[in-house]
């Protein structure tokens, strides 16, 4: 590839293939390009898959995401220089949501960090992983080792019957004294063995349901996916339902609801700035983020519930009278609520639940109300 290529030529680069590619096709998936990979967008249909996950258990292939290991002398301080979380207080076997920030406090990515005892395990978004790795390499001190687990796949098993289904596979803790799978609570993690094969399991996900994310070697993932889908509660679920599920759960999607122009406070992700870090600062972007925490922000990410059935999508203008007061960053029809919902950034003065606003959709005004998120209650195993 030469740098003379224009964007059209870049788009023409063949998407990469993930370890489960043939597995998805065999099960009738419709494949699309996403984050540079061929990914399953749906199998039997988005609404059916969405509902199945809310009622049973859905298996998602999220192997496009970046899995990283960070280790070395002083790794906690090194992570804390780049992320606003309290990683000194994150115990082994615990996971935390965090944000990779730039100097101006803009969000480079959102990610999950797990303390695995001898290293930290970090999962980043697929579309941003190469930039994230570049950013981390640039900013982490030389004595910190960053390893990209690019031969590992990542599965998510989500839904109220996920624990029952995964429980039947007989995973054993990799070390004595570790909690059993059934004893893991939301945002806890550990190494397990399945039939001798190593798995990194965390009780977390992106749907608002109870469930697990399972890091697995590429050569083992098809067997694991088969074993999971052999359980009567489990069906494979595509990216389409993953998006409608996370939207109902009020979880932002990077590249849509978050980007380098948004700061964590406007994005309503202040919980990711740990208490100690608020008083001490010392992370990239701290100056802006702490100022916004103290002074407030001009805009805020909110949830909107729409009247009628027509959806408002990314880019739609949020209006009050003739004034534009915000913009939709993601939106669609909620299969669980049977009505359209959206996330938008609106003027902070209009961010209170109950505020009536309009959304301009193709020249038509749709009535909407600011509502608290999640739209559909979380059902995490706490």
């Amino acid at each position: 590839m030469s740098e003379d290529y224009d964007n059209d030529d870049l788009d023409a680069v063949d998407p990469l293939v993930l370890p489960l590619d043939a597995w998805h096709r065999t099960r009738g998936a419709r494949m699309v390009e996403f984050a540079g990979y061929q990914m399953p967008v749906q199998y039997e249909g988005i609404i059916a898959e969405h509902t199945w996950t809310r009622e049973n258990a859905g298996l998602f292939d999220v192997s496009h995401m970046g899995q990283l290991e960070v280790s070395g002398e002083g790794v906690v301080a090194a992570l804390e220089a780049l992320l606003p979380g309290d990683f000194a207080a994150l115990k082994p076997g615990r996971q935390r949501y965090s944000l990779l920030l730039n100097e101006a406090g803009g969000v480079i990515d959102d990610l999950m960090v797990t303390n695995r005892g001898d290293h930290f395990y970090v999962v980043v978004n697929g579309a941003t992983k190469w930039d994230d790795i570049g950013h981390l390499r640039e900013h982490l001190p030389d004595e910190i080792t960053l390893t990209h687990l690019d031969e590992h796949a990542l599965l998510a098993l989500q839904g109220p019957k996920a624990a029952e289904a995964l429980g039947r596979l007989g995973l054993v803790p990799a070390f004595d004294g570790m909690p059993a799978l059934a004893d893991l609570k939301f945002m806890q993690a550990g190494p397990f063995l399945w039939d001798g094969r190593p798995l990194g399991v965390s009780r977390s996900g992106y749907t608002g349901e109870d469930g697990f994310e399972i890091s697995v070697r590429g050569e083992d993932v098809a067997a694991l996916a088969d074993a999971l889908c052999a359980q009567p509660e489990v069906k494979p679920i595509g990216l389409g339902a993953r998006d409608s599920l996370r939207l109902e759960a009020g979880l932002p999607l990077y590249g849509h609801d978050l980007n380098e122009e948004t700061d964590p406070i406007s994005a309503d992700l202040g919980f990711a700035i740990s208490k100690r870090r608020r008083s001490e600062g010392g992370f990239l972007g701290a100056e802006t983020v702490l100022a916004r925490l103290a002074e407030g922000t001009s805009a805020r990410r909110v949830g909107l519930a729409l009247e009628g059935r027509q959806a408002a999508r990314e880019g739609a203008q949020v209006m009050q009278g003739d004034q534009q007061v915000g913009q939709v960053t993601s939106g669609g029809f909620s299969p669980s609520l049977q009505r359209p919902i959206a996330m938008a950034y609106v003027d902070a003065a209009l961010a209170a639940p109950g505020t009536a606003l309009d959304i301009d959709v193709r020249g038509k005004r749709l009535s909407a109300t600011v509502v608290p998120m999640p739209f559909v209650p979380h059902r995490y195993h706490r």
Partner: protein
Amino acid sequence: MSRYFSKDHEWIDVDGDTGTVGITDYAQGQLGDITFVELPAVGQAVKKGESVSVVDSVKAASDVYTPVSGEVTDANPALADAPELVNADAETGGWLFRIKLADAGELGDLMDEAAYKDYVDGL
């Protein structure tokens, strides 16, 4: 009655000077679960190729282009409460609107069923 197809995946059944328009089964399959259909107003004058309706699926909103010019005489009332009818029954009960043709000569630009099938097979 004759049925014609457009490259934009609309079908039109023509009976005298009245046409009934919908999207094809292929189109509904591509769109996935349909959650809302915005229909043209009865009495609206429309030009061939103009976007006159919007079909919203869980994934995206898609324009529906009228395959002929004329005046809209009817819109499918069943779709307000049951837009999923377009998925279940795209080429019969899931019709979108009826139109009084302004120029039957425009039908010559459309495909018959066999030509449309070849067209879809080539996509």
